């Protein structure tokens, strides 16, 4: 009975790459996958369930926005930018209008600046709500999606009353705003602020101390500040890693310097911190809204801008803090009515590049969490 088992055929000394746990597998995730937030395709190299490496295949939604820009006048191109980050269209429009204004050396009048800030902050909240809902859904929490989308409706109603559109708003024009605020705009925004804070508490009650949420997000997808900076990651992802940097404070544009607000930062740079940072950001946005709506000045809403926009020859780069990060426009003017070159620096595109670094060594299920926490919009990644 005590006959020794002959294990020589197993060849235990030399490591066999194809033997059990060392088998590598390539898994294709997307482009039609609900958790990729659109048409992102990720090729995962797996060892069992452990991720060894990823490759993102993007471009399924490429519409050639930059080429379109070269073939449209400055005014005509304005609605196109809304179609990049379609859950935060207002921010896109703001960045574009400001860049052209910079080329023209004009500045929007104070009232227009306040209206812009109010709408942009509303837009930031709505963008973060979409993120929260879908991100939680990806991880398996169904309720926040319904809560977030229900409350987002209130913001979309304000947009709709203001400019007639809910998503691709085209709210701003080069030189200011085209629409005066409607009757009751201020009440609507005030009412929203009062309504929204308890709702935020509600989201937090669902998630912040939720045990499943904690296990799924804590320590997942850690990015340290050095990696963030090397990878050009901006926005809440950068701030969650502890870098206190927000363009609204660092290089204030519009009337942001008039408001008192804080930049929430994280410590660990993991998915949970990014969640906390975004939730805190929504609270800060409400703070800005409350201050802006009280202090909104009277006056014109449009600067003196020529009907035909013909910026002088030159080039300019300008960026704003969009909900996803630094959204920049680099516009080259040749003195004609059409931009010679429009370059969009999309935050989602650059942030998505960090995915590979974040998911290495994690499990497949965590990839879903990390894609959610990066808060990408494929319309902006692919342009």
């Amino acid at each position: 009975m005590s006959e020794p088992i002959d294990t020589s055929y197993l060849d235990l000394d030399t490591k066999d790459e194809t033997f059990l746990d060392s088998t590598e597998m390539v898994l294709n995730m997307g482009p039609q996958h609900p958790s990729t937030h659109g048409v992102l395709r990720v090729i995962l190299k797996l060892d069992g369930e452990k991720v060894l490496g990823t490759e993102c295949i993007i471009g399924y939604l490429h519409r050639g926005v930059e080429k379109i820009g070269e073939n449209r006048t400055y005014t005509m191109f304005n609605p196109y930018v809304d179609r990049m980050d379609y859950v935060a269209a207002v921010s896109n429009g703001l960045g574009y209008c400001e860049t052209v204004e910079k080329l023209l050396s004009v500045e929007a009048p104070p009232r227009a600046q306040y209206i812009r800030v109010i709408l942009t902050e509303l837009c930031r909240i709505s963008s973060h709500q979409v993120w929260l809902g879908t991100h939680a859904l990806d991880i398996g929490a169904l309720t926040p999606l319904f809560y977030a989308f229900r409350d987002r409706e209130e913001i979309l109603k304000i947009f709709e009353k203001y400019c007639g559109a809910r998503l691709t708003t085209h709210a701003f024009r080069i030189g200011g705003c085209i629409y005066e605020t409607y009757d009751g705009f201020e009440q609507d925004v005030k009412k929203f602020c009062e309504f929204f804070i308890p709702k935020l508490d509600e989201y937090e009650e669902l998630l912040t101390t939720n045990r499943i949420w904690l296990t799924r997000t804590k320590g997942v997808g850690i990015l340290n500040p050095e990696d963030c900076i090397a990878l050009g990651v901006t926005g809440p992802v950068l701030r969650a890693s502890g870098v206190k940097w927000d363009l609204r404070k660092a290089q204030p544009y519009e009337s942001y310097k008039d408001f008192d607000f804080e930049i929430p930062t994280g410590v660990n740079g993991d998915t949970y911190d990014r969640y906390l940072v975004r939730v805190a950001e929504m609270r800060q946005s409400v703070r800005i809204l409350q201050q802006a709506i009280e202090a909104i000045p009277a006056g014109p809403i449009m600067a003196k801008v020529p009907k035909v926009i013909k910026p002088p020859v030159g080039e300019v780069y300008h960026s704003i803090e969009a909900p996803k990060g630094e959204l920049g426009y680099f516009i080259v003017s040749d003195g004609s009515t059409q931009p010679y070159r429009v370059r969009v620096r999309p935050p989602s595109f650059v942030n998505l590049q960090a995915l590979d670094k974040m998911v290495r060594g994690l499990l497949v299920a965590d990839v879903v969490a990390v894609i959610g926490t990066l808060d990408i919009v494929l319309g902006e990644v692919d342009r």
Partner: protein
Amino acid sequence: MPEETKEPDSVLPQPEGAKAPSNADAAGKPAAPAVGAESAKVTPATEANPVESAKPAAAAKPAVPAAAAAPKPPATPAKPAGPVPEPWESEFAAQLRQQYGSAIQEASKYLGQTYMVVDQSILSEILRRMRDDEGFDYCVDITAVHYPKREQQFDMVYVLYSFPKNERTRVKTRIKDGEHVPSAVSIWETANWLEREVFDMFGIVFDGHPGLKRILLPDEWKGHPLRKDYDILLQDREWVQANLGIESGQ
């Protein structure tokens, strides 16, 4: 929700009475057109300058790119359109000029934004120096601009930002069609995808890039769409027919 709907009824009347002026402003959709009309009246006067000057500028346009957007002396005579780049006066710029001489083709400031045009041969050195010595630790964007009429057809543009200094600047270099550019991936990791996009859209090849291939367009696509000679209606018909099963994408 019922609370929400109640509130406006109680809140609305108050400001309506209290804030007559802003309300008139708000109700006065006519106010906005009035402003527009005013600006329309005023603009011919103000626009006269840009229009007048746009013509000389347009006339000078072929000359400007040809002269490699000449430093300043030649550009100044025909410049009246809007603001003009002024020399970038700083210790750093002076130091660079002294060290590299004519390899720093231009160091200017336009609308408060600084940029420099450097010779392609020292690009890598300058970029590395910007990060290591000058604190430009964040590469915001890498892109290119195509000027088909120039001999050096492409402008490579690096937008850099320094966290310690809270400062932004641009480094540019001019290259000929087909000329290679040293990759910046070893300096900033973020350059990886940004350079791939430039390659995809302009066909500029980066030496030393870890995986230079198309990023937004399909790998087999022919042509580089953001070149000026690529018409907006142009497409890779063969690819469209083979892969999408339709006659044309237009």
